[in-house]
């Protein structure tokens, strides 16, 4: 099973409606169906990276030129990118939308012993980093949730995270 095509389309459509136009990413397993959709849509510039750490620095650089940036990573990538989230995104105050596959969360439909422990620390970590977040388990309000998060990141001039669990992890 994979992320339903309809849900993936809705997610990408939501990003587009929120005027996201550049996505840095290190692919993961739960939301990967969005990548071909993003790649096929000329509204998006896709920037593949080799580490979530540089997903943040490259995204921050692009955001400072006026790009509307989303960073698509696995939740374990939050651990990898802690340093750049603090030293660049937070220290400089850069609006970035974190699109996070929330592996190991309670509602992760494919949760297992590989991910569960990693998932345990995600929300406390974001709280420690003072990054606002919302956990999404279904696509009911998806486009509105993305709009809300983007509006908040611009108002704060800081990263804001959407954690995708539940139906997004089937």
């Amino acid at each position, binding site marked *: 099973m994979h992320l339903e095509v309809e849900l993936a389309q809705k997610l990408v459509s939501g990003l587009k409606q929120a*005027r996201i136009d*550049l996505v840095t990413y290190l692919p993961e397993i739960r939301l990967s169906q969005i990548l071909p959709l993003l790649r096929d849509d000329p509204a998006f*510039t896709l*920037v*593949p*990276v*080799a*580490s979530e*750490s*540089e997903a*943040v*620095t*490259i*995204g*921050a*650089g*692009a*955001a*400072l*030129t*006026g*790009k*509307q940036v989303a960073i698509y990573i696995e939740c374990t990538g939050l651990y990898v990118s802690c*340093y*750049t989230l603090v*030293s*660049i995104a937070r*220290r*400089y*105050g*850069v*609006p970035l939308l974190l699109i996070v596959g929330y592996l190991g969360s309670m509602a992760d439909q494919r949760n297992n012993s590989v991910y569960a422990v990693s998932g345990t620390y995600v929300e406390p970590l974001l709280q420690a980093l003072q990054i606002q977040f919302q956990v999404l388990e279904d696509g009911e309000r998806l486009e509105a949730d993305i709009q809300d998060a983007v*509006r908040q990141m*611009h*108002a704060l*001039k800081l990263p804001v995270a959407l954690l995708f669990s539940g139906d997004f992890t089937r």
Partner: protein
Amino acid sequence: MIRFDCLKLLEPRITDQLVVTSLSGQKIEWASLSQHPGNLLVGTMGTALGVGIGLAIGLPQRKVIVLESDGSVLLSLFNLATLANLDPKNLIVFVFDNQVYSGTRISEPTATAGKTDLTMMARGAGIEQATTVRDLATFEQEMETALNGTQLKFIVCKIDESVAHREITRTDLDPLENKYQFVRYLERTEGRPIFRGRG
């Protein structure tokens, strides 16, 4: 060759290029030479190159210059592979390689003091225009080629350790102040807003 002499050659050549600095020594030296609003004085290890790549992607018509160091590049080696594959033609990277972690104040050696060659690593990552310079005349020649060219350049400058920056008064530019100065400069020169959201 010392870094400050290289930077003294670079500074008069800056017009509308954007300059991103890495950590303390070169940040202090560059800020003392240049108060250009297109300076982004990042000043943390392993982050300047990534930020510079992002700027170069966001403004492909504009030259972006990143001032890096050996210790900083070594901390984020994944940048090399990403940089090679993105291949931003408008990006120039100077890596001032003094082979020590100068900021430690005990000159602890970096890997480039041993067997590691950053130019070879950059080439191995796929950055074709990676080169090493060892004297000021060659630095100036490579700098001019890079500034006038339309290719990604990665120039490793083998320098002697210098602690001259410790005698320079540090800039008091706060990161947030620096960001807004930089962003407003881009808004003026690019003719469009950068940040969204209601004030």
